[in-house]
């Protein structure tokens, strides 16, 4: 039992993750020594996770508006207009630290949190995606973490009833001590039925909804704002436990209540629980909030104000209700078997007042808790440029065919079927493009529209050149949406980095953001929501800089889309975009030559736009139904994936004079797509491309049971498939 009058010692301040300067700032702000409850509240509001104190300054540089943006960053999720009176509401968020400590629960609560962010705004979730990075496969913890995280994501999403339609899974030793679990949720609402967090009206009831409050997750957000060390396993009690069944009920009850017209404002209790949700509702609405904790439904007896304010128990919501509608609202929650309690009211004092058992536990200025949070311009140094590796300086150690077989079966490039078969990707009956393509495609309600969804970033590019890597991450998301025929509309970003207190890490952060901002501007692809996860670092070793991009695009007619599979024998195979054989930071250089070296491929945003717009128009006009974006592993991997997906081979004869075949096949030049079209259409297509200055070249023809690379190197599609499909199941069974 923590009494409210315990003495605030420097040690206690430190344990709450506040620096002496930050504590002094808080004391100056309130003009007295805080109570322990108040110290808890400020530690929750001013940690990195909630206050963005190291990142806020730099996030301001991101473009966040466009005519179709209804709500940019700052709310529970971003909102874009997709026409017909419908809005798409989406966000991606990390649950990295908890997932490393307890992979199943860490991942489930990550999924639960992001779903809540979306339905808090009035949207019914229609799709989930994720972005996962694990340590090297040989690391003793990796298999266990993969198994737990995947089961956790499935366990939550499957039960909740949202299809998990896409994602990315990769491995690298730099994630040995800090895995990444980023979850994205996408929902639909009517544009005139979107709900926000800002409270309005004085004296309105504040209602607590959902599951009861327990002692789980206390200080979770503070834990997520610190580096790990060898004793990190001891932080297991700070991980929350997810209950997808409760969340499903909460979703249905909230949407039903919203329809009734009783809801003025709503905020989910995520990181920092009741504290952060109550403060945000008041601060955004320029109102004070008074809470009576005696009314809070508790799971355990004897909970103190401190514990209730910092609990991160899951599946809870806070709402401001229209006065007089309490009974109607309560009936809906009782029907769904959920707790409903009026726990406070809005005031005109601009104070955040917390009472418990008749005593005043906290009385703080509400706006300052957010506005006056520390803001740091941390020192940052740019990442030194890496040398450009000339294509002819890389000698091929093995044949192209051998290299391709090895790449399709490598941990990063192999099929992730073992993962996505554990996710229900077919529920709701709207999944048009399943996992395994460029972007997932889901139909919007009964059509005709569809959404294209993807998560992307190439961390090794970001490590070598943060600005180029940031640009590439956005460009690749844009390209993946384009490759299915979608018009890219907006992104959510999940910025995963090491400790911001190291200038070189801060330099990566600043550089990546610069690249992201530049690409978003050039491609009309604004950032509407996001999340920053710093301190992904263990014993001084940070992760690769990993700004994951979640992209959303629109298909006006979802029946007109492209997929990667070769569909017919005898189609012409065409490459769009320029090829220079860029091997620096390529998969080929890393996997086949064992060198993670050089500068990453440059990103020409004008070329991206020109080439992409050309490809999209070909899909939309019905001229092309087979497209794959050319990314990791270059042309060879792209062709192999198209052949495997369709069960049809291809004979590739096109080459570039003076370029070694392995540079031609495995170079990772950007802004490229591979298309397959009928021979008749190919002639027109090449002519059209030439007319508007889009580089396009005939590579060969589809057909047969083998992929034949230049120089008569033949690999059977079945051999490719065997290599592609076997690594991950074998690894998880302890055989690889």
């Amino acid at each position, binding site marked *: 039992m923590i009494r409210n009058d315990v003495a605030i010692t420097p040690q206690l301040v430190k344990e709450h993750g506040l620096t002496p300067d930050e504590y002094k700032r808080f004391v100056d702000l309130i003009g007295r020594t805080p109570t322990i409850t108040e110290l808890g509240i400020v530690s929750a509001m001013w940690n990195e996770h909630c206050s963005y104190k190291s990142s806020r300054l730099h996030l301001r540089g991101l473009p966040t508006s466009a005519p179709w943006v209804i709500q940019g960053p700052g709310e529970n999720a971003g909102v874009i207009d997709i026409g017909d009176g419908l809005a798409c509401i989406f966000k991606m968020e990390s649950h990295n630290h908890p997932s490393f400590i307890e992979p199943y629960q860490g991942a489930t609560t990550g999924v639960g949190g992001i779903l809540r962010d979306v339905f808090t705004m009035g949207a019914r979730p229609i799709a989930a995606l994720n972005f996962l990075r694990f340590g090297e496969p040989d690391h003793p913890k990796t298999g266990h973490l993969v198994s737990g995280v995947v*089961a956790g994501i499935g366990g939550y999403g*499957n039960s909740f*009833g949202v299809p998990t339609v896409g994602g990315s899974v990769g491995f690298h030793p730099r994630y040995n001590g800090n895995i990444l679990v980023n979850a994205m949720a996408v929902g639909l609402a009517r544009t005139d039925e979107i709900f926000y967090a800002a409270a309005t009206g004085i004296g309105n009831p504040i209602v607590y909804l959902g599951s009861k409050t327990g002692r789980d997750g206390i200080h979770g957000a503070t834990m997520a704002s610190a580096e790990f060390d060898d004793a990190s396993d001891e932080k297991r009690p700070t991980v929350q436990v997810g209950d*997808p*069944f409760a969340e499903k009920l909460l979703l249905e009850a909230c949407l039903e209540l919203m329809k009734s017209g009783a809801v003025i404002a709503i905020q989910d209790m995520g990181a920092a629980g009741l504290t952060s949700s109550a403060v945000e509702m008041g601060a955004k609405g320029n109102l004070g909030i008074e809470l009576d904790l005696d009314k809070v439904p508790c799971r355990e007896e004897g909970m103190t104000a401190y514990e209730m304010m910092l609990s991160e128990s899951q599946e809870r919501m806070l709402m401001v209700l229209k006065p007089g509608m309490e009974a109607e609202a309560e009936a809906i929650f009782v029907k769904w078997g959920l707790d409903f309690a009026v726990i406070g009211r809005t005031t005109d004092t601009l104070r955040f007042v917390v009472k418990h058992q008749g005593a005043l536990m906290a009385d703080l200025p509400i706006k300052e808790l957010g506005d006056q949070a520390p803001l740091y311009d941390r020192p940052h140094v740019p990442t030194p440029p890496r040398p450009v590796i000339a294509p002819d300086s890389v000698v091929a150690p093995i044949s192209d065919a051998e290299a391709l077989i090895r790449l399709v079966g490598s941990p990063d490039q192999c099929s992730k079927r073992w993962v996505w078969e*554990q996710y229900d990707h*077919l*529920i709701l*009956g709207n999944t048009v493009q399943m996992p395994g393509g460029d972007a997932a495609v889901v139909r919007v309600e009964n059509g005709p529209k569809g959404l294209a969804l993807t998560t992307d970033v190439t961390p090794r590019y970001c490590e070598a050149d943060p600005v180029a890597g940031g640009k590439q991450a956005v460009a690749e998301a844009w390209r993946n949406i384009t490759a299915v025929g979608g018009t890219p509309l907006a992104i959510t970003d999940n910025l995963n980095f090491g400790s911001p207190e190291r200038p070189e890490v801060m330099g990566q952060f600043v550089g990546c953001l610069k690249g992201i901002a530049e690409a978003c501007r050039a491609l009309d692809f604004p950032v509407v929501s996001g999340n920053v996860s710093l301190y992904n670092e263990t014993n001084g070793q940070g992760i690769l800089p990993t700004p994951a991009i979640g992209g959303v695009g629109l298909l006006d007619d979802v029946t007109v889309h492209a997929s990667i599979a070769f569909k017919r024998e005898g189609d012409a195979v065409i490459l769009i975009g320029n090829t220079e054989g860029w091997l620096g930071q390529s998969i080929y250089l890393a996997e086949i030559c064992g060198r993670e070296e050089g500068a990453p491929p440059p990103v020409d945003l004008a070329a991206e736009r020109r080439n992409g717009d050309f490809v999209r128009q070909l899909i939309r006009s019905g001229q092309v139904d087979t497209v794959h974006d050319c990314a990791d592993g270059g042309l060879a991997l792209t062709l192999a994936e198209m052949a495997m997906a369709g069960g049809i081979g291809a004979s590739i004869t096109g080459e570039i004079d003076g370029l070694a075949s392995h540079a031609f096949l495995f170079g990772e030049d950007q802004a490229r797509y591979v298309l397959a079209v009928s021979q008749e259409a190919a002639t027109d297509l090449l002519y059209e491309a030439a007319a508007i200055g889009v580089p396009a070249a005939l590579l060969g023809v589809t057909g047969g049971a083998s992929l034949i690379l230049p120089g008569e190197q033949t690999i059977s599609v079945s051999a490719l498939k065997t290599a592609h499909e076997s690594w991950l199941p074998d690894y998880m069974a302890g055989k690889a």
Partner: protein
Amino acid sequence: MKSAVIVFPGSNREGDVLRALSQAGSQVEKVWHAETALPSGTDLVVLPGGFSYGDYLRCGAIAGRASVMDAVREHAARGGLVLGICNGFQILCESGLLPGILMRNANLKFICHRQFLRVERNDTAFTKRYAQGQAIDVCLAHGEGNYTADAETLRRLEGDGRVAFRYCDATGAVTADANRNGSMNAIAGIYSEKLNVLGMMPHPENLIETLVGGTDGRGLFESLVSSVARAA
């Protein structure tokens, strides 16, 4: 035809089956689990997929004892049609309407994938639109779909022609590889003695349109609609 789709707390494929039934030409009404009677004139009761009560006890155990289930049992006893899909199949087993139980999948993981089923007989209200022995392409998504029953029950099910569907490959061959959840006798669905109650793990309701993978699932819903029309 009038169908009633029962919604339990945690049901999550009720919208999918509602769409399939409407498309096949049935009127459909959702019925909350706390009701004690079915809408009058109900021809078909559907227990949809999902995780009723979170599957926190045994799958379907709590829903099998919901108040609406008495009405469902009466409907079945009168010879009314009942279809339980996935969690609905689990609920039928827990409520005593069908024998056996669904255990955890053989690999102890949730699995979601496309799956062929062999139609064992096409003379029931559920399968008229299929050919006997036809391999139909549907979707499967469950963690506990491993059909298990004692030897006597299995003998009875087989002897009375009550196996509705078996997991098979694209050619209709029942192979070990095709039976990924490890069900006894590769059983994917079974009938009640009077053939008016069907429980099945796979989801025909998710394969009703070319755009989202195929139309093999339609036959089941169209069979039901035409059976009821003929009986009327």
